[in-house]
């Protein structure tokens, strides 16, 4: 799905995503307040914090759905703040949504094929003037999509309307679809919410596998502290729109501020 | 200068009718999320009910007004029970309801035309009396319209701010979920919203027919788009916004004739609305919504 595996990834200490001093207010309240963080290439970073901490808003700002009032966002050393979501996605930063946006009136396979970034047939004139190329690409894309669906064990649902999938299956579909875009970094907004533990575990396994084999970077929002402690290289903690801690799981576990602000409610049902 | 004052007076009078009609439209829009395309035809219905009382039965205009109010309110409530509520219960979405209201508009307008024909009618009231006040002229009709509108608007204002039902209506128009949580009986409020919207529409229809000194089956529909413009200008769901919006639209339409040939003045109302949508979509009194 993402071309051939490149073998074991050498951890290069380069920053793929750099958020610097980003602020966004809504009606007087700072939803995101001078947030800075740096994400290393090929890392798995967890973004945690209580409800209302600003995590989804931060995702929206990074992915271009909301423009920041101040601050900059660098992705692969290019500024993306203020760029619309489709432009950011085309550069290789893709995100999923807290409430899944599986396109219910399209089939599972169509959802996947839609995400492929290199289909000239999506341009009006190519439909008529490059019909053969378009057709060939469709076949390639379908193959790639089916492979991905097989990996996520959704292939038997390929021709079903995405609307018939369960919540957990839709989360998997959204993740698989995001990967079809050949991204460099994937932002997952609560990928495990509402997903049964078996599917959730599978999702996490996929995340590690894809990172290990292809060097993809992951930044995900999560509430389950057990998951976060065992499935991340780094943890960023937010509260009230600010970053209050940023470090390895071991460091975070010891951080008093975090314990006070948040870890006390760890594991409590949302 | 005289022309300016005259146009302002005319604009205010016309605007007050738009305002009265728009209040009902905005409340229904805000609370039920229904863009009621048939609202204009509720006005027409009211105008014809007044006609029946005034001309067919020979009653005094005050009774005609009462007739217009009561019967249009009854129409609005009746439709809520036989059409809107069942559709909402079946999960009809906003677009479905909008399309339904278009169908309803067609039915109402043409039923009226079927019964009364297309020839314009007139009420049995004095249309020729007018007063020259130096700076401007004002006709008896215009005075009636603006006086009635002012009374109505004041009444509506009191109702919305002082009575429990009125306050509940405003709360609902702001946010249906919040209001439901706070224990308000949404169905009852919805019914009362239609009563209010229907009454105002019926009266606005009669006032419109008085102002224009004639009524025909299309009268109300022709006022519909200016009313929508007023609603959008004032901010959807805001009754006060609709009132202000109506006056603004009325003034803009009349005053525009200073610069623009009068045949185009209807287009001006639409132009104002489009500008509002482009630069301040939440309207004058609305709150900017988060994406």
């Amino acid at each position, binding site marked *: 799905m993402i071309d051939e595996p490149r073998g074991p990834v050498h951890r290069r200490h380069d920053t793929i995503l750099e958020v610097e001093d980003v602020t966004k207010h809504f009606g007087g309240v700072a939803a995101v307040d001078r947030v800075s963080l740096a994400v290393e290439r090929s890392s798995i970073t967890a973004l945690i914090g209580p409800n209302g901490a600003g995590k989804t808003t931060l995702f929206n700002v990074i992915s271009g759905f909301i423009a920041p009032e101040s601050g900059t966002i660098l992705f692969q050393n290019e500024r993306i703040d203020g760029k619309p979501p489709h432009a950011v996605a085309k550069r290789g930063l893709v995100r999923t949504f807290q409430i899944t946006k599986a*396109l219910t009136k399209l089939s599972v396979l169509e959802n996947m094929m839609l995400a492929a970034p290199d289909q000239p047939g999506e341009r009006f004139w190519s439909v008529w003037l490059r019909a053969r190329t378009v057709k060939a690409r469709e076949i390639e894309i379908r193959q790639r999509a089916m492979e991905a669906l097989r990996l996520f064990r959704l292939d038997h649902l390929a021709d079903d309307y995405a609307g018939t999938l369960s919540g957990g299956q839709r989360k998997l579909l959204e993740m698989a679809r995001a990967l079809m875009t050949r991204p460099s970094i994937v932002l997952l907004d609560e990928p495990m919410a509402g997903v049964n533990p078996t599917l959730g575990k599978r999702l996490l396994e996929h995340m590690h596998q894809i990172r290990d084999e292809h060097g993809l970077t992951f930044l995900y929002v999560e509430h389950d502290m057990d998951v976060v402690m065992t499935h991340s290289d780094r943890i960023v903690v937010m509260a009230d729109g600010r970053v209050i801690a940023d470090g390895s799981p071991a460091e975070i576990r010891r951080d008093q501020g975090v314990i006070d602000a948040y870890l006390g409610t760890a594991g409590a049902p949302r | 200068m005289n022309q300016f004052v005259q146009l302002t007076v005319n604009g205010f009078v016309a605007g007050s009718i738009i305002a009265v009609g728009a209040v009902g439209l905005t409340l229904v829009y805000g609370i039920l999320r229904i863009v009621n395309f048939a609202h204009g035809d509720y006005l027409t219905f009211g105008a014809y009910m007044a006609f029946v009382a005034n001309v067919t039965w020979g009653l005094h205009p005050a009774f005609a007004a009462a007739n217009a109010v009561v019967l249009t309110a009854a129409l609005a409530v009746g439709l809520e029970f036989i059409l809107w509520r069942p*559709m909402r219960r*079946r999960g*009809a979405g906003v677009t479905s309801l909008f399309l339904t209201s278009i169908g309803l508009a067609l039915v109402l307008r043409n039923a009226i035309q079927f019964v009364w024909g297309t020839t314009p009618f007139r009420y049995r009231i004095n249309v020729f009396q007018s007063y020259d006040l130096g700076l401007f002229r004002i006709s008896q009709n215009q005075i009636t319209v603006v006086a009635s509108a002012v009374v109505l608007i004041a009444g509506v204002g009191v109702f919305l701010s002082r009575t429990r039902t009125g306050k509940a209506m405003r709360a609902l128009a702001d946010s249906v979920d919040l209001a439901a949580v706070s224990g308000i009986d949404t169905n009852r409020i919805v019914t009362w919203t239609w009563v209010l919207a229907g009454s105002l529409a019926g009266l606005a229809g009669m006032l419109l027919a008085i102002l224009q000194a004639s009524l025909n089956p299309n009268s109300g529909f022709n006022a519909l788009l200016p009313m929508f413009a007023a609603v959008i200008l004032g901010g959807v769901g805001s009754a006060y916004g609709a009132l202000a919006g109506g006056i603004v639209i009325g003034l803009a339409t009349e005053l525009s004739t200073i610069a623009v040939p009068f045949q185009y003045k209807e287009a001006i109302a639409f132009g104002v609305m489009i500008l509002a949508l482009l630069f301040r979509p939440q309207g004058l009194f609305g709150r900017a919504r988060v994406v």
Partner: protein
Amino acid sequence: MTFVLGAFLSIDFWQYVAVTAGIYAIFALGLQLEFGFAGLLNFGHIGFMAIGSYTMAILIVHASLPMWLAALIAIVTAMLFGLVVGLPALRLRADYLAITTIAFSEIIRIFILNSVRWTGGPQGVLGFAGDYTDFSAALGRRLSSLTHISFDPDRVLLVLVWPIVLLIYLVLRRLTRSPWGRVMRAIREDEDAANALGKNPLFYKLQALAIGSGIAAIAGIFFSYQLLYLSPTSFEPLFTFFAWVIVLLGGTGRLGGVPVGAVIFAVIFAGTRFLEFWPLSLLDDGDRAAVRLIVVGLILIALMAFRPQGIFGKREELLLDR
């Protein structure tokens, strides 16, 4: 009884219905692309048809352009208007877009009504059909000699309209089944999802609006040659609503449903105009017009209440549950 059958069997009657149905089909196909596939609540569709009709007529009468060139420019003009209206309007949320597009079509109608020098105002435009009537007569003669059937102007128009309906249908079918169409359908359902996958929603919606407007202009051109004159009253919002009923009747998103819906609509519409049996015979023209529209309104309500997916639509793809 023979009187009834006589009316039903009249070839002229069915020809007229068929031409009307064809014009409605073209008009509604444009709307189907815009709403059924791109999800746009365009309630000003008739405005673009008016731009098509009047641009062509004005170019012929005032600039003496030949029919083909005038028609081509008219179609392009309508498409450009689609872009001009779309750029600001398509950013608005759905209900505002609906109201804005109606306002737009009314602004167009008001301008047409009052630009007497160019459009003839309420009197309308005459005298643009010279080229066409020559062409139509010549074609009629050719077809007559080939088939040994007489080809009056209505019949010629019939032969011209329906192949275009088919052509537009095939073009749209190809488009909507292509990857382009897939992006459109995604945007229709959830533009944020499409945006997050690298597709630019505004860009696609503009294309749908422009193409749909061009198709409306094509319908306008045929409409002009059916009537042989133009007047502003032919371009009221009512006609946009007819297109909506046709699209909804055939099924939102079902291209093949549009010609079917158009035929049904044309039969109801034209049929009640000419049929003379009881109880229709009790009503005069004005009343019949009113009854016709009441029926249309009731059909619309019934569709929304009981079968929103129309005749051929699929419930799973229903766009109207928002």
